[in-house]
């Protein structure tokens, strides 16, 4: 995405807080890199509003790597507490993003065992606009109750519908280590601007 002088932007930022919600670190807003092929495939589906089965050759991969033809839009990214199959997810892989990525490299499981994080539900900020920018934000918080450090190196957004599909994957410019009892909140900002 950063290759273009585009007006439709995808950004992310995050905050790390202690168990008392005192902010320990607040990142700058960073440009995402990037939407993966599934996203443009599903956006096309949304523009057509019917199954790709009508259009041979336009397939989408689920997060387990199997190939399907979506019959619903699959852009839905809401997710409940503890659900790592949909919504904003985090991982420990740092392999560079590939346009055909269909999953995080190594997703961090939900839980309180070693190497795990507790996933909150995904929340959304309703769209807002100024005279030049319209945007909305997708948010999720991850709490470390594992007893040790957990390091996040990648994040992503998984859409759901009749199948789960990775829409966005980003490798963090620098890994973030979350100590026991700390929490990290990620925000994806989708915006269009003049």
């Amino acid at each position, binding site marked *: *995405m950063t*290759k*273009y*002088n*585009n*007006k*439709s932007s*995808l950004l992310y930022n995050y905050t790390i807080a202690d168990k008392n919600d005192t902010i320990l670190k607040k990142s700058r807003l960073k440009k995402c*890199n*990037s*939407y*993966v*092929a599934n*996203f*443009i*495939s599903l*956006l*096309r589906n*949304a*523009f*057509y*509003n*019917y199954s790709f089965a009508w*259009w041979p*050759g*336009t397939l989408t991969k689920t997060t387990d790597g199997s190939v399907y033809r979506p019959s619903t*839009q699959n*852009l*839905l*990214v*809401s997710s409940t507490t503890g659900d790592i199959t949909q919504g904003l997810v985090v991982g420990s892989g740092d392999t560079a*993003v*590939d*346009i*055909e*990525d269909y999953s995080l490299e190594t997703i961090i499981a939900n839980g309180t065992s070693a190497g795990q994080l507790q996933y909150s539900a995904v929340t*959304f900020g*309703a*769209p807002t*606009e*100024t*005279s*030049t*920018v*319209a*945007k*909305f934000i*997708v948010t999720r918080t991850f709490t470390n109750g594992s007893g040790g450090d957990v390091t996040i190196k990648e994040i992503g957004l998984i*859409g759901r519908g009749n199948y789960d599909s990775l829409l966005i994957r980003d490798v963090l410019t620098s890994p973030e280590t979350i100590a026991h009892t700390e929490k990290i909140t990620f925000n994806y900002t*989708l*915006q*269009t*601007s*003049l």
Partner: protein
Amino acid sequence: MDIKFQFEKLDKNKNIVSVSPKYQSKSFVENFLKLLFMDMIVGGLNIYGIDGVYRGMGASLRCVVNMGGEDFHRVSALADDWNRLAVSDVGIIIGSGTEPILITDYQLQTKIHNGNEAGELEYLPCSGTNFTVNTGTDVASFEIIRIFRNNTGDPITINEMGISQIGSYSGYSYYTPALIIRDLVDPGQTVDDGEYLKAKYTIQIAA
């Protein structure tokens, strides 16, 4: 995400007369973001239709409808509602206005209507094509295309262009389109009598 648009002019025998450079689209307007939001959370929001009415709208970015031609996706139960849509209300639409774009634009400034009367252009079906994923360049894209024909006897100049989705509300019992992209076409594209103009939007992402 990156959007570009381009034009091809064809003579009456459909031979290409000229191909424009690719222009940077600017931009998605607020309606697009709201509809994407609704798609991502299954929520309802009010948006402005092209009629200027602010109303609750179902989540739909659909803009490719073979209006005016054979539409094999048409559902018979909805036929009456489909038929309320003008071909110049959905898909790629064009106009003669030159006012700068606002993020809140919900219609073209001065739409060129479908027809063969003075100041009109004939809207042929809007289609989508060329979904590609190039693993070599890490780019994925698809195209939205529409062809317009000038049968008026006089040249017509296009100064603005956009994409309008097919809106819906009240349980899909009626449709009110909403503009999701508006661009100024500068320099304007003049279509002479008997000529065709092919407009193409390319929507792409890159890793």
